[in-house]
């Protein structure tokens, strides 16, 4: 039987880049195919060609054995191909039903929207595929995971049986990821064929039937989770051996660099998001802050970097009180900040790379003399950093927006690490990055620690926290549940703390129960 979808020799060039170079790909009916590759490997370009958003320069697409011409998304939809984009295409102020029917509205009496009919079909779909969602709730009120379900329903509503999911787990919490894969499996059981794009190896190993790996626009090979190992996949993806474990020397903590006492911070809506947090970070150690996203980590970091005001409490850096200091003052204390949202806070995307590399040092010598910017110095330092930090860009004059996510992050790291710093605050430093970039950035952070820098690492990814931290704090509802030495932090224990359960509490409760049962003890 012919595969449900086959791509042969797909080639697509953009000015200066060969995004897809004779890519072949097969999708069998009722399978989950993982399309694995680093950022910039050409995964998304390939899928956009399949969905009719780009036209290939060469190559052919066959759907159910027949050659298909896909010039626009409507052609793809007609062929039963549906796409769930990484960034959702939903109207926040519309209900789920309205969003789903958008573009294929059911109508009664000629002009009126038939919301009920749409809602009924949505309920049918959500029953059939276990996609729980209320058709009448507004999209803006839904958590990200549920919004993604709406996107999937949208695709199913248009009767797609080939589903493309572009980096579906990038925006989800661990629990939501689990839910998503349950949904994907139930879709497969009912005969849908699925391609999911990712660079996360563990997801691939756990959920895919087959894995096709792309590297620099070429197909490297196809394998199955049974045949592959994490290391082998990583090597296929990056093209060299990758160390999945960060090697670092034992910590030699020095004097206290960051000292936080009873910090309270409100979020943008005025709710108390950080509620009485106290901790120290010493030179030469990494304090990891674990926790499910949205438990006050963002506000904690914003307060530490001067971007948000502390309500009460005190922040000291090497003894200097910076509780009410401006971002620049804090910066000048030798604080580097790798922000959580690199495109919003960390970069000016329309700037050339060289300007982003001096975004917070442009006013200091040698980059400025008085008022005058020294562009030759800026350009020279930028080129040097781009090489040193392996930022992949045609040159430093390219707009930062043209860089891949991993290289944008490297640009931020390059900028922050090229200043004399004594405290590094890194918030989700590898969010959305591929294995090669993660390895690289982790190594750089560990290296900074070894040089005697104090590091505060905030991340919802337990793997990252466990790989790097010397001590681990778990944040839950604006408070630190505990601060543990890394040696005592097991995945299980951290998981419980992240859910707000203190192990000591449970032990104590068990003990108490035992005592009550057996007073003789």
């Amino acid at each position, binding site marked *: 039987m012919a595969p449900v979808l086959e791509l042969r020799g797909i080639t697509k060039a953009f*000015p200066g880049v060969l995004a897809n170079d004779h890519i072949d790909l097969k999708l069998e009916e009722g399978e989950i195919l993982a399309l694995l590759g680093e950022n910039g490997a050409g995964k998304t370009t390939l899928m956009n060609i399949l969905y009719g958003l780009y036209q290939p320069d060469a190559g052919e697409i066959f759907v159910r054995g027949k050659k298909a011409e896909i010039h626009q998304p409507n052609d793809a939809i007609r062929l039963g191909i549906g796409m769930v984009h990484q960034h959702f295409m939903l109207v926040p102020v519309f209900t789920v039903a309205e969003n789903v029917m958008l573009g294929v509205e059911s109508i009664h009496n000629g002009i009126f929207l038939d919301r009920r009919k749409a809602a009924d079909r949505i309920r049918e779909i959500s029953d059939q595929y276990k996609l729980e969602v209320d058709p009448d709730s507004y999209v803006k009120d839904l958590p990200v995971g549920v919004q993604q379900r709406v996107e999937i329903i949208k695709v199913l509503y248009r009767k797609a049986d080939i589903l493309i999911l572009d980096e579906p787990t990038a925006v989800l919490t661990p629990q939501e990821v689990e839910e998503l894969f349950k949904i994907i499996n139930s879709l497969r059981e009912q005969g849908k064929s699925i391609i999911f794009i990712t660079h996360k190896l563990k997801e691939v190993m756990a959920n895919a039937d087959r894995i096709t790996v792309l590297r620099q626009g070429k197909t490297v090979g196809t394998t199955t989770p049974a045949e592959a190992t994490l290391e082998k996949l990583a090597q296929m993806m990056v093209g*060299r051996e990758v160390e999945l474990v960060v090697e670092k020397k034992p910590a030699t903590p020095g004097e206290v660099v960051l000292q936080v006492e009873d910090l309270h911070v409100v979020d943008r809506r005025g709710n108390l998001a950080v509620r009485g947090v106290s901790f120290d970070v010493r030179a030469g150690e990494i304090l990891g802050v674990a926790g499910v996203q949205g438990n006050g980590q963002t506000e904690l970091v914003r307060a530490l*970097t001067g*971007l948000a005001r502390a309500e009460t409490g005190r922040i000291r850096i090497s003894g200097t009180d910076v509780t009410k200091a*401006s*971002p*620049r*003052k804090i*910066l*000048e204390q030798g604080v580097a*900040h790798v*922000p959580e949202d690199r495109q*919003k*806070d*960390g*970069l*000016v*995307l*329309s*700037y050339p790379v060289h*300007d982003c590399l001096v*975004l*917070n040092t*442009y*006013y*200091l*010598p*040698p*980059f*400025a003399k008085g*008022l*005058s*910017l020294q562009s030759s110095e800026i*350009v*020279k*330092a*930028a080129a*040097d*950093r*781009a*090489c*040193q*930090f*392996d930022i992949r*860009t*045609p*040159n*430093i*004059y*390219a*707009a930062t*927006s*043209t860089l891949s996510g991993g290289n944008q992050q490297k640009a931020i790291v390059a900028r922050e*690490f*090229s*200043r004399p710093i004594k405290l590094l605050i890194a918030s989700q430093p590898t969010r959305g990055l591929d294995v090669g970039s993660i390895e690289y950035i982790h*190594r*750089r952070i560990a*290296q900074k620690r070894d*040089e005697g820098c104090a590091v505060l690492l905030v991340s919802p990814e337990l793997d990252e926290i466990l790989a790097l931290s010397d001590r681990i704090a778990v944040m839950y509802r604006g408070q630190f549940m505990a601060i543990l030495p890394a040696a005592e932090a097991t995945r299980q224990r951290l998981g419980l703390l992240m859910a707000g359960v203190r192990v000591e509490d449970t032990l104590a409760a068990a003990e108490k129960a035992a005592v009550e049962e057996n007073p003789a003890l």
Partner: protein
Amino acid sequence: MSIAGEESNLSEHKPPAQQEKADTHAESLAKMLLRPARGRLLDAILLPVLAVFTALVIGAIVILVTDLDVLNLWRHFFSAPGKALAASWKTIASAYGAMFKGSIGDPAEFGKAIAALRATGDTAPLRQAFWPITESLVTSVPYIFGGLAVALGFRCGLFNIGVEGQIFIGALASVFVGYSVKGLPMYIHLPLAFLAGAVAAGLWGAVPGFLKAKTGAHEVINTIMMNYIAFRLSDWLLNGPMKRPGYVPISPAIQESAWLPKFFPAPIRLHAGLFVALIIAGLVYWLLFKTTVGFEIRSVGANPDAARYAGISVTRNFVLAMFLSGALAGMAGANEVLGVNHNLASAFSSGYGFDSIALALLGKSHPVGVVLAAFLFGTLRSGATRMQSLAGIPIDIISILQSLVIIFIAAPAIIRWIYRIRLAREGAETVLTRGWGQ
């Protein structure tokens, strides 16, 4: 605090790609520094030029459609196609011909003037021949200042619609210093009067900037409101405290020591304001692209969150940019009273401020683009008068032309579609202002 030197600590930890050979590092360094070919310049010029050309074509159609005689001939197009085409050509040729003669000059007159100069040594015909183009330049000068004002605001993410009002404030302050201060030598009086206009309008413009910084009030609303206040303020002043004796609401004439010098005898009105404007345009370019002040302004405009993260005060730059924008607008007012009118009458600006928004867009908020766009607008405006008197084409056609140019600049997709120009790169389009939600 210096940041050089720190790199050497890290260089031992080079990425594997560069560990192979020592000279690959130098190679990749050189590659990083290689400037790409300047394809962008063509991009930046091609679209505006095509926009203007297309506007002229559509303008020609409008001229034909509004001409009853020509329209009548088109009714009989199938019986006498030659007549309709010939009449259309004649109408358009005379309209645009008159516009050309009115804004650049009549080629025939140049010849005659040179002949006269050779024969008699009389320069009057020569001055007459050059008069149209110098008039276009005179009209362009306030446009340069106004366009720079709007462009500087755009660069900081601010939409200064208050240029018209700021021009009035600048003119009021300049004219006041111009007529009330007496006995100063020119080299003090003229700069003083000019700066008074700039500073007054700068402060006027800084008010909405301050309100935005402190309260988040949108500058679009507040600059519009400040316009009305400025208009009524100038009405009141010109009817009361600043009125010269008589019935006309007009200020006293300024002292000659505050006049911007002229270079040629009458009728040529070209004055030193043109050179001041070009110097200021150069200064704005330098400020925006070569100084830390401009880096801050542009960072705030391009991404205020990242600017804040980088330690730049967003609120301070809002106020500063609005002050500078207002000051540039004020220079337009100062230029008009010190260089052209030598007094201030009510409604003297007649829309320079609003046209400036359009030409800042046309010039892509770049000082060089603004200067070129200002010359275009000045030329159109001064040509329009002649077109009306010679060819009987209403002056309003110029408003239509200007509007069409702006529409095509604001929606470049139309021009791309007409001329089948592909977008050079994804994301090459520059967004000049942010939306209301910001």
